[in-house]
């Protein structure tokens, strides 16, 4: 147990100190959300209607790009080999690293979302629904991303491969996340229905992600 706590603290500390993690993800989030009105035009009514979808897409892409920080640093300096040789179960170690990664990249996105949503004219109710769905959905994105990051960890230029692997698996999270965020604003569907499915997806990814990622790490590093 202390090993896992130690990994959690270490990863969090490293991510906070090295920089380029949390703030870079939030910055990328902001840049993407800024780009889209340039493409769509400044019609604020349109932007308000598709605001939750834009924010969800930007959060997905920001999570995706932050994924190579999960195992990349540890693979480069050899800590990953030490972790694999250690006594702590690899699945739990990977789960802990995923939690640490979410705390340092996903959670800042959730906090920044309502502020950045202001440029899309997001009102308070929509912002609250969006924050709830992102809070539940970004862990799912991180844990699904664990699988892609583990498969591509030994590749030097595997960035696009991670995207190609993770994005199809993240589609259900995106669908239900946006459905829940939109349901709070408009539409006959209640917020709870897609939200509970989103919670289910996150819980499932907590199990599937670490097991698949641990298996992939064992195969890749031999």
């Amino acid at each position, binding site marked *: 147990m202390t090993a896992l706590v130690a990994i959690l603290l270490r990863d969090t500390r490293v991510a906070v100190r090295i920089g380029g993690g949390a703030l870079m993800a939030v910055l990328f989030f902001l840049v993407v959300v800024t780009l889209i009105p340039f493409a769509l035009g400044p019609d604020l009514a349109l932007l308000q209607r598709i605001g939750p979808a834009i924010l969800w897409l930007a959060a997905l892409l920001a999570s995706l790009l932050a994924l190579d920080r999960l195992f990349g640093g540890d693979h480069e300096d050899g800590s990953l080999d030490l972790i694999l040789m250690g006594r702590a179960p690899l699945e739990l170690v990977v789960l802990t690293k995923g939690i640490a990664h979410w705390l340092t990249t996903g959670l800042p996105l959730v906090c920044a979302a309502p502020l950045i949503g202001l440029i899309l004219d997001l009102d308070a109710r929509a912002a609250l629904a969006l924050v709830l769905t992102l809070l539940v959905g970004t862990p799912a994105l991180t844990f699904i991303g664990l*699988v892609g990051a583990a*498969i*591509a960890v*030994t*590749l030097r230029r*595997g960035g696009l*491969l991670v995207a*190609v*692997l993770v*994005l*199809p*698996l993240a*589609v259900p999270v995106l*669908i239900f996340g946006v459905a829940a965020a939109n349901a709070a604003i408009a539409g006959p569907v209640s917020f709870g229905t897609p939200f509970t499915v989103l919670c289910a997806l996150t819980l499932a990814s907590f199990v*599937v992600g670490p097991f*698949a990622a641990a*298996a*992939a790490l064992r*195969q*890749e590093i*031999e």
Partner: protein
Amino acid sequence: MAIVDLANPSRFLNFANRAIPWLGGVTLIAFAFAINQTLAAPDDYQQGATVKIMFLHVPGAWLGMLGFALMSIAALGTLVWRHPLADVAAKAAAPIGAAFTLMCLITGSLWGRPMWGTYWVWDARLTSVLVLFLIYLGIIAVWRTVEDPSRAARAAAIFTLVGALDLPIIKFSVEWWNTLHQGASVLRLGAPTIDSSILIPLLAMTVAFTFLFVTLLLAAMRNEILRRRVRTLRLMRASAAS
């Protein structure tokens, strides 16, 4: 010779060399019969002759999903039982299954234009089949990106098993959601709801396409085994020269 002897690549190559011409012949005969049945099938009272796109669309869907199920079993063979030819089968099946899924998507789109008025709609079944196609492409990408075949095999196997969660979603998508795509008419509890004049050509085309799948799979597996031998020989020659 028991079937387990086929796990030996050389014995498998012998078997494939003898089996592929026969399977190819059976495929041609099956297609001849199936196309005959298709041309003789009656036109639908509403859709006219357009209903016959179904005879390409449904086998494509079934074989795309069968291909992925085959790859999932092969993935288990690689990871759990370390079967020597499991990864060869998985690598060979991926492009073939992807091609059948693409055929399903394209024929479905062409069928949807006159029937539904649109080439595409984002309902549950079409979306989940499109996601299946993307997962196929991801698996092919893993095979092409990782250089060592055995490591690529294990990475692709893990990703295949994670992606296999999409298969029940596709099958039950028409029940779980309100979809524009019609519900299950053949593989369902209770008898099929299609008239036999349409069901027989459909099954004939499915059988023909399945024989085609198996023939192409064996040929691709043979190619992959030979490709690995060439690679090993090249590596041996390169290390002997240095």
